[in-house]
């Protein structure tokens, strides 16, 4: 019996999908094409005459949709102009997003028909030490990344705005790594860390990617190399907007370079700091392809004892040391085949991202006003 109703609802759903899609895909453009032909050939195929009398519905449809009135034209253009991007957006982004909220509460494994299990997945995640560890590593990585990238990018921006001889070459050169995709970049740096830097000996004697903590440092180096040039460009734009007469005035007043930077440049580029910190935060949190090709989450390491205490593990289990959240979600879904749990993790990821971003924007905006 239960099976029967399921089948029926599926059929009903299919029929609905079909009708709606027929309407959207065929009927609306069809009318548009005919209208276009009409105006092109100067004939009246649909026999729409604005002066003719018809019923209430007919009048309404002609006046607001089919007719040659300004009102009708406006409505038609509104719908047809929004339709392409709106259809693609709602079908491939909004609908999966809503479905995802439901799937995060099911036992979906990719092959079965998902059944509703309430908040069980979220409870599973609460006890999942690998996710806790991965969250901790991502937070650590993102915080370090925000500081390193912004400090380096701002310094680069200060250097290349000093009217140096080769400043255009410097700008292009620092920016260049940003053009290369994260995945390709990961392979490049895997080679550099594993083969090239070990030749130098010293602290590079063994590859950075072998040890968990140095692998995270390696990842930060790679992402800084990739991203600093981009952020630098944002700072350059901001620094160039600082009025020159302010700087000249301070020079006459006898301010040294450091005082000028601290009291004039920094406050005036505060807006750029907001933007850049937000950008670096979001990219660090979402980092996926570089990690995959550089370390693929590894190397394996032991869960830190303080996390072991939280999760009540006396025997510390093995975890992946650069297993950032995005990688963790992918592996949970496609390697462990726990799509439901993976989806629940991604919802948590989304909420964290949203909250952190909102807090940061709010905080930085307040600081701007004070300055």
């Amino acid at each position, binding site marked *: 019996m239960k099976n029967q109703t399921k089948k029926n609802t599926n059929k009903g759903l299919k029929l609905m999908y*079909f009708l709606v*899609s027929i309407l959207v895909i065929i009927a609306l453009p069809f009318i548009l094409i005919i209208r276009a032909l009409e105006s092109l050939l100067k004939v009246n195929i649909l026999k729409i005459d604005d002066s003719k009398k018809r019923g209430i519905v007919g009048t309404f449809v002609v006046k607001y949709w089919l007719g040659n009135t300004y009102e009708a*034209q406006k409505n038609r*253009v*509104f719908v047809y*102009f*929004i339709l*392409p*991007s709106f259809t*693609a*957006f*709602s079908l*491939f*982004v909004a609908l*999966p*997003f809503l*479905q*995802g909220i439901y*799937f995060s509460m099911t036992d979906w494994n*990719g092959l079965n028909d998902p059944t509703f299990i309430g908040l069980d997945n979220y409870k599973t995640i609460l006890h999942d030490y690998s996710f806790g560890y991965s969250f901790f590593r991502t937070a650590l990585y993102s915080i370090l990344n925000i500081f390193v990238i912004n400090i380096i990018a701002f310094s680069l921006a200060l*250097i*290349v705005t*000093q009217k*140096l001889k*080769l400043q255009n070459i*410097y700008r*292009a050169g*620092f920016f*260049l790594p940003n*053009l*290369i*995709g*994260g*995945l*390709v970049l990961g*392979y*490049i*740096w895997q*080679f*550099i860390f594993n*083969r*090239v830097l070990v030749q130098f000996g010293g602290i590079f004697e063994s590859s950075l990617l072998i040890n968990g903590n140095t692998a995270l440092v390696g990842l930060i180096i790679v992402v800084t*190399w990739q991203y600093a040039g*981009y952020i630098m*460009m*944002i700072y350059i734009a901001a620094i160039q907007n600082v009025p020159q007469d302010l700087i000249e005035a301070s020079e006459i007043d006898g301010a040294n370079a450091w005082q000028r930077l601290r009291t004039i440049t920094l406050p005036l580029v505060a807006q*750029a700091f907001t933007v850049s910190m937000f950008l670096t935060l979001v990219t660090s*949190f*979402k980092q*996926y*392809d570089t990690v995959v*090709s550089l370390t693929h989450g590894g190397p394996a390491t032991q869960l830190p004892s303080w996390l072991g205490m939280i999760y009540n593990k006396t025997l510390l289990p093995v975890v992946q040391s650069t297993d950032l959240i995005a990688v963790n*979600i*992918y592996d949970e*879904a496609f390697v462990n085949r726990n*799509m439901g749990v993976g989806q629940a993790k*991604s919802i948590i*990821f*989304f909420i964290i*991202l949203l909250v952190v971003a909102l807090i940061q924007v709010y905080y930085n905006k307040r600081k701007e006003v004070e300055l």
Partner: protein
Amino acid sequence: MKSKRTKKIILEIFAFCLLLVFMFPFAMIIINSSKSAAEIIRNPLLLPSNWFQIFTNIAEIIGRDNIHYFSAFFNSLIITTVSLIAIGTFSAMAAWVLVRTKTRYSFVIFMLFLSGMVIPFQVVMLPLVRLLQTLNDIFGIQFKDTLYGIILVYIGFGSPLSIFLFHGFIKSIPIDIEEAAIIDGCTKSQVFFKIVFPILKPIYVTLLVLNGMWIWNDYLLPLLVLGMGGNIQTLPLSVASLAGFYDKEWSLILTSVLMAALPVVILFLFAQKHIIKGMTSGAIK
């Protein structure tokens, strides 16, 4: 005055050293893709004994079955160009009517698009894969593993940011021009394509750059929609599949990396000004 000049020279030298550090990985790729596998193992820092080895390596890459370099390159090219044109045009159209129609609906739709900007891809990816399969089951339209499928998905993911940027720009265009055009006898859609669209060129270029960098280098979405080793491969996918297959065979991996990165770098050398301007102005807005 003299000390100021020496300071500048020191700064110049410092900046140049930094540039060398930044360029070091590129130099390593070029040097080592001109070497045979055995030569790389001996010493990756030395200059290659025979620079022409790079052509042997390139020929080998082109010949390999699991990369299909040219087909991957052209697929990437088609996907990127068609998506860029479609995203740009459709988003401009949508943004224009959203700005010029001041109703509750247009506000709600705009807010819907805006909220799409904060959704990370990870949240959508699992249901999306399932949805594409469902669409195939119901309508028999294959969205997975097809060019139009991935392009449509890119239009969906690209439109929120593009509509947001166009929306901001169109608001600054005075409506008088459009009203004048209507008085002169333009229809509504003519007003857009003949009057407004040309004005949008600067922001259109910005979006070409922003979306272009994203789509050309994207890995996760093609991995899910096209699949690794499927009929249609993009450059990042084929580099990943080659690197996965020839683990640690660096002469091949680095050559493929070089061949994947080269088109963008060449494009950058020609359109440097547009690219830098596009990427920065896109971020600030």
